[in-house]
């Protein structure tokens, strides 16, 4: 990739000095470390050469004539921010109805708000990663979402990033900052999609979440891009005491997808749910990297990731739980379960623990298997065809992940999409 894909620093005269410094130091960081290679342990199973070979543009011709209907989430009453090829389209967005105490505006317009300078980059700059550095150096599009102390957003916020450019491959660096004050509540759906199956694009997204004491944040990452598209999404979460954060990730699209979830439980008795499902077919490559840090006493983290791999696809799961010395009384669970539907599908699962406290309860485990033949026989012995039996069982494998999502319309949409992706599942009707 050329640096064309980064936003020109000089082209943003109004930005505060700190923002300029953030970008400049990030660019220096990127120049030093560059793109990750498979020699980097964290990228061992994911080769990004296919991404870096492409001549990416920062923008290109976009169409005014965009039908958003196929990209809405049916029955979901949500505020909507639409980004077309990385550019916010206010004319297509509707950020109303969020209620008092809620700020939701383009990040670039929020840089001078109180607290933004302290928070933006506070988490991302700590991760030595080329893509993250590139986003830090390039941030321009994305949202600032703040729910002030004691308030709750009245509707979820649906952040839809749509790739439309068929001729020019466009790289975007979406950047969101989500701040939930004390005892505040907000639900955000980050949704990546493309208008056709042929679109080659890159979204290198970073979202930083700050959840203050007793706050509740539910974050969804829906990856439904073209199977020729690329997505690197990194979610940083910093949690205050007794805050509850739920992160749900569903990866369905993309040629190469890397999903990083990096929560830090920094206040006592914080709870973090990290729920994920990756469903791959053809030659898709879906990589998930979790890094959960317990930096305060008596926090709970729950990681549940499941993969379903068909054809020649590949899944990767790396889950690291780090318990600092301060993390006494930590209760951490991590499970990764994978189902392989073909002989050529592969998955690499690496559960990792790094524990510096002595009073902790950590369990982790990874399994990889196939559809249970005994269960298939059981279903067939009740009259269901082999295809339907298998599809039902694969769905059942994934179902508990959907059950954890609070927004029923999102759950229904994703379950339907997942089912549609299963081989020969036409005869299957499932109520979610």
């Amino acid at each position, binding site marked *: 990739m050329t640096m064309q894909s980064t936003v020109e620093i000089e082209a943003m005269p109004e930005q505060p000095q700190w923002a300029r410094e953030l970008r400049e130091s990030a660019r220096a960081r990127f120049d030093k470390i560059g793109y990750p290679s498979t020699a980097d342990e964290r990228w061992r199973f994911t080769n990004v050469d296919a991404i870096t070979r492409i001549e990416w543009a920062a923008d290109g011709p976009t169409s005014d004539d965009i039908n958003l209907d196929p990209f809405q989430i049916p029955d979901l009453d949500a505020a909507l921010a639409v980004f077309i090829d990385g550019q916010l389209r206010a004319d297509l967005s509707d950020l109303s109805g969020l209620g008092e105490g809620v700020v939701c505006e383009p990040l670039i317009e929020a840089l001078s708000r109180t607290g933004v300078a302290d928070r933006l980059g506070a988490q991302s700059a700590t991760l030595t990663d080329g893509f993250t550095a590139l986003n830090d150096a390039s941030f321009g599009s994305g949202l600032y979402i703040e729910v002030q102390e004691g308030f709750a957003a009245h509707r979820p916020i649906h952040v839809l990033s749509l790739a439309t450019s068929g001729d020019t491959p466009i790289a975007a660096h979406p950047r969101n900052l989500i701040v939930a004050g004390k005892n505040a509540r907000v639900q955000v759906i980050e949704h990546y999609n493309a208008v056709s199956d042929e679109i080659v694009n890159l979204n290198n997204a970073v979202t930083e979440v700050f959840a203050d004491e007793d706050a509740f944040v539910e974050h969804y990452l829906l990856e439904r891009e073209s199977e020729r598209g690329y997505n690197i999404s990194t979610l940083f979460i910093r949690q205050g005491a007794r805050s509850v954060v739920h992160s749900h990730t569903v990866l369905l699209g993309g040629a190469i997808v890397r999903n990083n979830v990096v929560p830090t439980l920094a206040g006592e008795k914080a709870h973090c749910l990290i729920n994920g499902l990756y469903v791959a077919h053809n030659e898709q490559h879906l990589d998930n990297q979790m890094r959960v840090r317990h930096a305060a006493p008596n926090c709970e983290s729950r990681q549940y990731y499941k993969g379903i791999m068909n054809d020649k696809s590949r899944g990767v799961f790396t889950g690291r739980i780090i318990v600092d010395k301060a993390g006494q009384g930590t209760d951490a669970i991590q499970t990764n379960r994978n189902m392989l539907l073909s002989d050529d599908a592969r998955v690499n699962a690496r559960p990792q623990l790094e524990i510096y406290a002595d009073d902790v309860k950590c369990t982790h485990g990874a399994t990889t298997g196939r559809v*249970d033949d*005994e*269960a298939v*026989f*059981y*279903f*067939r*012995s*009740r*009259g*269901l*065809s*082999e295809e*339907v*039996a298998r599809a*039902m*069982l694969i*769905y*059942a*494998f*994934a*179902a*508990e992940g959907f059950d954890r999502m609070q927004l029923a319309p999102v759950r229904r949409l994703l379950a339907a999409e997942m089912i549609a992706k299963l081989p020969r599942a036409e005869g*299957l*009707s*499932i*109520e979610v």
Partner: protein
Amino acid sequence: MSQTPLLKISNLHVRLEDDPAVEILRGIDLTIMPGEVHSIMGPNGSGKSTLAQVLAGKDDYEITEGSIEFNGEDLDDLGPDERANAGIFLAFQYPVEIPGVSAMQFLKAAVNAKRVFEGKDELNAGALLKHFRAKADQIYVPFEMLKRNVNEGFSGGEKKRFEIFQMAVLDSVLGILDESDSGLDIDALKIVSEGVNSMRDGHRAFLLITHYQRLLDYIVPDQVHVLVKGRIVKSGGKELAMELEENGYAPFGVNEPATV
């Protein structure tokens, strides 16, 4: 005019697909007429459960000789789902737990699969619920059970009762009960038996596979067959079960009792 047997097994030889040296069934003959209840009793390893699974169409086994006819038609080419839709029901010894699929969802799909097989229209949700409620009353199954995931967390008794309930819901004509009595206390056994007895209507037939005579106190068979080492070594009326209760399988060369 003679009636067509519901099930006619002739000289059935079966071996393991994966281990052809092992012949498990070595020439079984068995005829069940509509409305009859037969019991196959046998010690451990006699081939009882294999027979049940072969009848249901499990493909771990290879039939090397003989035939199975259901309503006069050879079953050889039919898969487990087609056999089920034709009216054969296997109540599993160990019903499989399926987290993520509710019993309701599962049964709706099964009932409608059978209706499609029979060339009928699928039932809508309302009609299905009504059907389930009627059968739940008949089999003494709490309707709430349908809201749970298939067999997940069910007690041994609940699993067996849910199997019988499924047979009633699917309106199968031949019920093969593979050790449905195993692991049940007397109360659970009675409930399962009453469910089975409520389905006896002169047409529907049952094949009760069991190690123990006890079940036959509650579901009285027309015929009892003793299976030892893959062969039926003796057949008789229900009094044969009494003999087994008394003497165990010793007269057949296996030193196992037939009582719990």
